[in-house]
């Protein structure tokens, strides 16, 4: 271990499955680090006076601190510290766009190769659990308060975790048959294997969090009932309304929405079929995905694995400005995805089913006062891309439940739940956090929201 580890040993990701093999499997790509390589990689950290990684991280993980603990082989303490800021560290370690967050901000990212923070974050929990460690159950007797959490996704789990640690009785409701929300049903297993989430659910249960699944509030159980039974309610219900492109042909058969497609695929793999999100098999199809976010990447790579013959991503800005994680773009490319940048869809073509997409080339305009550059169409650059299936992955809008108004839960003009700084909605006993409050965002942001909301609830309950 030396102060020069960062130049003596280069950045090295863990081994990744060969792309050819990956194309056919829904397994995670990366093998984990072993202890030795984890320590070598962690030792590259400079322990900057300004930890840019931590500053950029939405939950402000104590990254340099736990890297140091890895070097010192104090994995259990690292795990405990990692859990202090994050309920789902092993999950975030897998799916966060680190290259845009911690690793992107890492001092060493300028010319030396950033520390492999994501993989190390994952390593910590995996290694600690492997050693028999588990998050500590609350040390004190119950505080006598009961809180209901609606939604077992990242926000709900984050919230439940903190409430539970404080000795609150927590019951988490979810309409799905398994814990995790989109973590389970939205994210494909090649990024996040379902056993990981199941294990996390078990850890939370072991700590005292209880789950009631297959229960949709407003349908299976009324909000009125919840408010009667619990001291407070947390809403962590996400955003599910798919954004539309607003161009002709969007309703043609063969145009499918990203999320139902992904959910259908996961349910098929989990053997939990559901009529509302049927399995769609794209084997042998020419597939075009419109959009450039992580969901688009997930669709592209799912399609590859299903055996699609041609998979193309069309995105309206350039690669530099694409929101999706660079790592995932690279992985997608390796797996055979074809990228078309600076292409804006104008129309989906076809008679009774999709035949292709009409695109126009774009270029980035001058920066606006805030420095953002908007794409402008290049006249005369239209072209048609042949396709059998077009997946729309433009992101999600809030999907407020019909009963919000009746319980005095106000929304903003974009349909997001309005809260104060303590995450309290206009109904004092109802709190909210995650995508439904912020609009569609990262998993890690939702976790953070849920956890902070829990502290708001505890302060409100005076415990």
């Amino acid at each position, binding site marked *: 271990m030396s*102060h*020069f580890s*960062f*130049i003596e040993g280069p950045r090295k990701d863990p081994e990744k499955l060969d792309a050819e093999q990956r194309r056919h499997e829904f397994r995670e790509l990366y093998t984990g680090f072993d202890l030795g390589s984890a320590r070598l990689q962690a030792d590259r950290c*400079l*322990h*900057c*006076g*300004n*930890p*840019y990684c*931590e*500053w*950029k991280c939405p939950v*402000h993980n*104590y990254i*340099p*601190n736990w890297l*140091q603990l890895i070097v*010192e*082989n*104090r994995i259990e*303490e690292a795990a405990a*510290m990692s859990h*202090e800021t994050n309920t789902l560290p092993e999950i975030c370690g897998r799916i966060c766009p680190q290259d845009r967050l911690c690793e992107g*901000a890492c*001092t*060493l990212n*300028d*010319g*030396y190769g950033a520390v492999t923070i994501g993989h190390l974050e994952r390593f910590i929990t995996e290694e600690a659990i492997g050693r028999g460690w588990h998050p500590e159950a*609350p*040390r*004190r007797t119950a505080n006598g308060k009961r809180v209901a959490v609606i939604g077992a996704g990242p926000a709900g789990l984050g919230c439940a975790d*903190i409430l539970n*640690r*404080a*000795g609150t009785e927590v019951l988490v409701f979810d309409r799905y048959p398994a814990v995790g929300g989109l973590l389970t049903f939205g994210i494909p297993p090649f990024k996040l294997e379902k056993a990981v989430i199941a294990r996390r659910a078990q850890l939370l249960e072991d700590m005292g969090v209880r789950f009631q699944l297959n229960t949709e509030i407003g349908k299976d159980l009324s909000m009125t009932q919840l408010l009667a039974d619990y001291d407070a309610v947390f809403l962590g219900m996400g955003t599910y309304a798919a954004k539309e492109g607003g161009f002709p042909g969007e309703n043609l058969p063969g145009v499918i929405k990203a999320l139902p497609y992904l959910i259908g695929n996961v349910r098929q793999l989990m053997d939990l079929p559901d009529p509302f999100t049927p399995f769609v098999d794209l084997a042998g199809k020419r597939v075009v995905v419109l959009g450039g976010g992580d969901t688009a990447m997930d669709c592209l790579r799912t399609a590859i694995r299903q055996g699609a013959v041609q998979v193309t991503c069309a995105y309206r800005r350039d690669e530099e400005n694409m929101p999706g994680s660079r790592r995932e773009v690279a992985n997608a490319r390796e797996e055979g995805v074809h990228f078309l940048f600076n292409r804006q869809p104008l129309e989906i073509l076809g008679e009774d089913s999709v035949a292709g997409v009409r695109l126009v080339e774009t270029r980035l305009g001058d920066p606006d006062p805030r420095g953002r550059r908007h794409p402008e169409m290049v006249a005369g650059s239209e072209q048609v891309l042949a396709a059998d299936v077009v997946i729309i992955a433009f992101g999600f809008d809030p999907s407020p439940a019909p009963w919000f108004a009746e319980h005095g839960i106000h929304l903003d003009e974009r349909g997001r739940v309005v809260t104060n700084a303590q995450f309290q909605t206009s109904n004092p006993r109802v709190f909210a956090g995650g995508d439904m409050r912020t609009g569609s965002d990262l998993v890690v942001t939702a976790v953070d929201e849920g956890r902070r909301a829990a*502290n708001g609830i*505890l302060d409100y309950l005076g415990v």
Partner: protein
Amino acid sequence: MTQSLYSPEFERDSCGFGLIAQLDNQASHYIVATAISSLARLTHRGAVAADGKTGDGCGLLLQMPEGFFRAIAAETGLTLGRRFGIGQFFLPMDESAATPIRDRLGHEAADLGLALAGWRPVPTDPDACGAEALAALPSVWQAFLNLPADGDIDAHERLLYRLRRRLEKRFAGTEGFFAVTCSSQVIGYKGLVMPERLPDFYPDLRDSRCASALVTYHQRFSTNTWPEWRLCQPFRMLAHNGELNTVQGNRIWARAREAQLATPLLPMAEVLPAVGGGSDSFSLDNMLELLVQGGMDFFKALRLLVPPAWHNFPHMDPELRAFYEYHSMRMEAWDGPAGLVLNTGRIAACALDRNGLRPARYVITKERILNIASEVGVFDYDHRDILVQGRVGPGQVIAVNMHSGEFLDTAAIDARIKASHPYRQWLESHAVHLDADDAEGQPAMAVGDLLSSEKAFGVSFEEEDQVIRVLAEGGQEAVGSMGDDTPVAVLSTQPRHIADYFRQQFAQVTNPPIDPLREALVMSLNTVFGAESNLFEERPEFARRIEVHSPILSDQTFRALTSRSEAQFRARTFDLTYSAADNTLEGAIEALSMAALDAVRHGDVILVLSDHALDRDRLYIPALMAVGAVHHALIEAGLRTRCNLIVATAHARDPHHFATLFGYGATAVYPYLSYAIIRSLRERHAFSQPVTEQKALENYRKGIDKGLYKILSKMGIATLASYRSSQLFEALGLDRRVVERCFQGTVSRIGGASFAHIENDIRGLVRDAFLPRKALPVGGLLKYVSGGEYHAYHPEVVRSLQHAVKTGRYGDYQVFSGLVNQRPVTNLRDLLQLRPAQAIPIDEVEPIEAITPRFDTAAMSLGALSPEAHEALAIAMNTIGGRSNSGEGGEDPARYHNNKVSKIKQIASGRFGVTPEYAVNAEELQIKVAQGAKPGEGGQLPGHKVTGIIARLRYAKEGVALISPPPHHDIYSIEDLAQLIFDLKQVNPSAYVSVKLVSEAGVGTIAAGVAKAYADRITIAGYDGGTGASPLSSVKYAGSPWELGLAETQATLRRNHLRHRVRLQADGGFKTGLDVVKGALLGAESFGFGTAPMIALGCKYLRICHLNNCATGIATQDETLRKHFTGLPEMVINYFRFVAQETRELMAGLGIRRFDDLVGATGHLQVGGAQTSKQEHLDLRPLLFNAALQNADSNIHTLDRNPPFDHGELAERMVADAMPALERRIATHLHYPIRNVNRSIGARLAGEIARRYGNNGLAEDCVQVDFQGTAGQSFGAFCVQGMRMRLHGDANDYVGKAMNGGTLIIAPPEGVTYASQDSAIVGNTCLYGATGGRLYAAGRAGERFAVRNSGAIAVIEGAGDHACEYMTGGQVVVLGEPGVNFGAGMTGGLAFVWDRQRQFPDLVNGELVNYHRIDTEAMAGYEGLLRRHVEAHIAATKSRHAQDLLQHWAEFLRDVWLVAPKAARLDVLLEEAS
């Protein structure tokens, strides 16, 4: 509280002093006249006020000229009896005020059985005074008092003392009244005049009948110019040169002991309180006088007050050691640089502090006249008439019994005092020693719920990991870089440790820090338990005390101390926690104090203050507040010395926490929570190396001990006993009530947090402590953590600045400046806002180009920075007309004469690469007295950073660590600084000399002293500055905000009419134009920027500068990393132009066109913008006082330079005489007589040579100069190749300072009778920072010979203590006895030492050097080398001593040691030396 930040308590003084005595007690006027002329020849050691006439004061203390006064009495019709005494008084000029005093004296005298024969108005001539002295001119009166027929001299002196005390107490508040002396044995004449005017002012002194056999004399250099006639010295017994760093603690303890004092000889109530304010020297005089008048033997009293170092001298005579140990239990040392001369009329004495930090040289002539003074050669004598020529060494005393004519040296005095009682036997049968490092057992106080305790007492993960763990692992404090960019405690929105409100004071200029590592032998943490006894009695049972070596108690020691059965150590525990529901913090403190008083009254001795009982629903008194309050309550009640205070606390974790507890009176500390954390860390395998529990705890204690040494030494204090209760802190942000109740007497200038605020913070901590959902806070005080403490250079600030300097767009800069200017309140200036004003168009404001020349980059050495970064800064600053600063480390001559030159060249304590050529290639020479990141501390450039180029520039070896000492070894006092400034102005008369100070309470008065020492420029740096590596507790706790220091300095300089003489700069955390404008309004004319230009160059504020692994290639010497450096001068230029533009915009907003009009215009500022209740509670109005100052100096400097009064005529003549030959490189030989007032001789000439020919361009011995007489200080400073100076006579301190070449020869004139090897021929600190050249001196040298030498070759015939300290090169031959601590910190070069007494192994500091015999065949090469040096010495000096040695070579060789660095290989070393 004064209106401004200035306070009289900040005054410091230092000086020159002396004593002259006729050993056979034959009184003569010659002695008096010679004392005065000697005094005049020490004028350069004093200061002259702005009026050019008022000195800082001088005076004489005469053995009573009895015949003179009898004659005077006869003339004036007063009847004197067989015995009489004279009271010499300053009385108010106003007769109506003076009359009652004179009347009262008559009454009191009669009451004491003395008869007032009458009053004599002492003739004085006010024409001798300057305007400032006249403003406070007193009338001087003598009371002639006839003494009773019975009683001896001592009894008479006591009566006169009592009379004086009665009057002093009665008229304590009377302006203008002061009793100069009141004695039958001595009389003092003193005044605020220049020494040569003293007999003009007092014609008595010119009267040939005024005859005396003994006179002490003193010339004062005070840091301020308030006319204070009473503070002129000598006082009633002593005159002091130096500064007592411990005086505040000494005064407090003196008061605390009063209740225990009893002697049948004096009615205590009448004389107490005996120790008054005034100056440190005055208090010491008061104390000494009390002890002596109370019946203590004079020498015992002197040694008790100013003992030599003895703790770490195992070879000391055990009987003598016992004397010191016994007395160390009774009084702490009055510690600090001290040269003392004493005069009781019957005894003449001179004593030096334990570290020998002041010079004292003496001669005894054939007429049996003894003269001791700060310098040798202050009166005219022929060297052939000298019997003995010597110097007083560290911890030594010499004395003359005037009645017997006996000359007493240290050994004789020690022999006398040690034999007075069987101290050793007393100690052996009574004293109890507890071994601090007993095996660890169970915790004496276990922590049940560690997490809750940590949270409740504010421990974070960061502290656990970065502070406690590091201490427990390595026994050393962790090091950090880049200073402190967090808010001070009172501005923070986070609850902060109470110790965070305290800034450590540190020595700068008027007193030196100690090097606690290399000069460790003077340091001690010894701590004693049990009640103290009456000082006037010495009894065996008084030795019944418990001693421990460290006040950081282990579990074992704590248990042992608190469970003894004897009544005299009975212990009692006091709970520092209280019920949150039933009491308040203030109430709980009150109750605690009452309980403690009660317990001591009932006989409890060991009081344990414990916060261990904390639980939910309870709050705690911070231990520091508790100890401060109880300590003062006990003093108040006269009980303090009857008990000890042990603090068992969770609140003591880092060295500063401990230091504050001791500073406010704790006897010892038991840090139970730290121990629990260490045990837990170990269980969690948190240590990188396996370590036993016992070892980890020991390491921790050792680390705290070291930290304490460092904090003590920063103030120049050697022993914890003297540091305890000295309160050497400035409270920053504490409410007056809190200070009065808990920290009485502490400076707290701006108010702040109240009891309620502090309690509220604790309530929050305790609430969270018992909330399981609240995890242990991660921290954020040291490094930025989201949600933690605010950092002024947080990631976004860094990123936005770097973006702006790259794009060069002012709009991008405004994003950065917006982030900074609208940040949460972080610095005091954030609470000062610009007052709205009538704006003017920006075109009317002076241009950017007029503003950027006011910008300098702060000192950063090549060594700290990579060459690329260092040069980029220089190019940028030279382009915009500003200046870059070389830092401490020399500069590559390839950068001279082009735009890579650093226009400011720094002179720091290590003197690395400070050569004549370096000095002449500067526009400004900056003396770094202290640096913001770690004032009062030295530094170390680790070996791995010492690359080839750095080694070359620093005259060192590649790969070998380089040490920068904490003190400048040639600045132990203010007059020393004046001397260094003079040296620099001699070598480079065209350079401005600047002095860099760090803000602390009192810095304004120090700055006044610096201005009087003829600096041209002064920089006030804030705590938040600093880029260098530094121990964490120094980063966080030393130095105060520049806003305070600057405002204080501006006001003090103006008030003293000194401001026009110096340009003032502020430095510390400057980022934006708003900072610049606020700095200017508070008084700064120019600005130093450290971190911001670094960031502009690409620094990412990693804070790893000390590790050499800087990823941005800036703070590293690593080749690979340096390739990653992407900074360009243009980025720095962009940054400074942006700042200047923003400054212009703000000036336009204020309606100000010229920058000069901003300076000091505090009227444009208003207080506002508080965001927290604590911030609202601050009173920042004193910062804005300047604009309201009446009758003061200008706001800006109006003189380009501040020329010294000493024009250096001899040096000018030498240059004029040598110049024709010099210009044509023709050899020339010159001859001059020389006197001690001719200072820095050679430097002026050396500068002229270096300017023309560089260091090595002139042929050897081209200019030869012979001198006859005694040279002043710094003889041969900056000597350069081409010069050969031969002095027949002797020289004072600093011979060969910074010499780089040439030869200096000093030898006694022919015909002298004294033996050269027994006589002092040069003073202290010779060859300091020498980089080459040769010195041959036929005689002994003083302390610290060849300190930091890196190339000079020297032969001398004996050395004082600490010779060859920090040496990195060169060769030193000592043909006589050396002192102790030889070779401390020596990493290069070699030395030969003749050890005739065979005691060298006890004298050498073996940490870094080995010593070898050379009388073997294998060492023949070294023998040859030595022989060549001895022969050269003989050729140069004709030394008889050396000739003797050469004749008995084989015999001589047997007793010679070769001293060589452990790191060096002997064969290589020899090769390099030959």
